């Protein structure tokens, strides 16, 4: 009697489907990368221009070196603005996220309120910060106000969502026990919800502060203030050596922010 053989089961059992899918992927790759072969799926990539990209990149990088820190005052102003934006946005986001998180927790509020809260969270989380920033720049003009508002909206929905999920995952017994003493809703929040939520809430908020420092450099590119706006301006003027100086500063800034956030969150546990 021969030894029994064993092969792991295939992800797709039918060999026709299995190899057919691979074949179709190959066909799609060829069609999309070849201009005008099948116009419907072609990405219209101009391969001659793609070829010219490499030397152009080499040119740009060569003009970046050495980084030029001579306009450090402009750079410093941008960085300071970004950090201020991140701090302000985190603060107001933390405040606004509390009511939002509470009304989006199913175990605390009636169904209509919950649906309203979830809808608010959903809408504010649908759009990327850059899109929200474009709106606010259109409404309030260029500058840090638009950036702060953008980051407030983003922080509020991010922390709010975390808070809502945490409240929903809370052990129900403590809620029940406080309710059984005859405590009203605000007291239930104070004694059953707040003590359980506080460490996580602070942790998420500190994480969000770190994220806001990163995001504050992005929203500037659409004109919402901060070091990103300085970066965008330097690129459009072909001051690549200054651009590199800004990029290096952003790396250091984000690194410091992340280090700070990790340090605080480790202390919170």
């Amino acid at each position, binding site marked *: 009697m021969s030894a029994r053989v064993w092969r792991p089961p295939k992800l797709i059992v039918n060999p026709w489907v299995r190899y057919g899918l691979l074949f179709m992927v190959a066909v799609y790759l060829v069609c999309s990368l070849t201009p005008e072969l099948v116009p419907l799926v072609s990405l219209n990539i101009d391969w001659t221009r793609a070829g010219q990209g490499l030397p152009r990149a080499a040119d740009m990088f060569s003009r970046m070196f050495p980084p030029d820190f001579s306009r450090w005052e402009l750079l410093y102003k941008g960085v300071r603005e970004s950090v201020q934006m991140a701090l302000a946005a985190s603060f107001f986001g933390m405040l606004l996220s509390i009511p939002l998180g509470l009304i989006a927790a199913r175990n605390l509020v009636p169904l209509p309120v919950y649906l309203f809260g979830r809808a608010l969270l959903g809408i504010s989380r649908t759009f990327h910060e850059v899109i929200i920033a474009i709106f606010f720049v259109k409404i309030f003009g260029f500058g840090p106000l638009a950036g702060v508002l953008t980051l407030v909206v983003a922080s509020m929905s991010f922390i709010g969502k975390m808070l809502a999920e945490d409240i929903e995952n809370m052990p129900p*017994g*403590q809620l029940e*026990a*406080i309710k*059984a*003493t*005859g405590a009203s809703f605000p007291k239930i929040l104070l004694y059953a919800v707040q003590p359980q939520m506080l460490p996580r809430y602070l942790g998420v908020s500190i994480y969000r502060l770190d994220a806001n420092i990163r995001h504050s450099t992005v929203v500037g590119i659409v004109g919402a203030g901060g070091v990103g706006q300085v970066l965008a301006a330097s690129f459009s003027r072909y001051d690549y050596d200054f651009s590199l100086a800004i990029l290096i500063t952003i790396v250091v800034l984000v690194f410091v922010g992340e280090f700070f956030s990790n340090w605080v969150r480790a202390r919170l546990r």
Partner: protein
Amino acid sequence: MLSITDLVKVYPSGERALGGVNLHIDQPQVVAVIGSSGAGKSTLIRCINRLVEPTSGRVLLKDTDVTTLSRRALRRARRRMGMIFQEYNLVERLTVMENVLSGRLGYVSSWQAYRRKYPPKDISRAFELLKRVGLDGYHNTRADALSGGQRQRVGIARALMQQPDLLLVDEPTASLDPKTARQIMRLLCELAHEQGTPAVVNIHDVHLAQGFADRIVGLADGVIAFDGAADELTPAVLNDIYGEEDWSKTIQKTPADQGKGKNRGTLERESAAG
């Protein structure tokens, strides 16, 4: 003191947890409610303070019909009913003192509650209760640093802090080791008698129920199958409550305290006859 009439609870799933329960407690006594899991014990005590909304029937606490109260009036009624839980349900990140004082939440404003500014007499009562339950000096310990038995002692102190007219106790010993379970049960019954507070105690352990309760109520499928003194429990009664089983081991283990010794004799005779 407590008068329950035709209490029915049908859950949205269609499950009929209580099918017309009548229970009257007119003196300060410890009433143990026994019955298999799913017999409706938890539903019964949660319908009394309306943590579970009863489908029909009446619950009278002194002269208040709890089932018809508005939300505000219900909160006032809940202040008069102390509740103790199987999983203790302490707020783990708060101190022992904060947990005990939370029994007074119904009596202070939200601002006072937030600032932990309780009236001095509440605070001295909290210290007395902590001493009485054997946790003298633990007031600033965080609840999550306590053992199971200690947590349940805090749970008892919190419920008594309400100065309740009724104690609702849901499986107080089910998460504890046998020795701690006896200690907690003893403490609970002593305090209920000391304070003159009637207590409804759901309990799995027939043996503990017999040893400590003044009166035993047996629930089976949401209706009362037995209601009588602890020494009236016979194998036939336990069969009614739980279904057929050999009960000789359970009942024989009853401690031979004075007054219960003769009961053991009758039980043995009955089981021999049966």
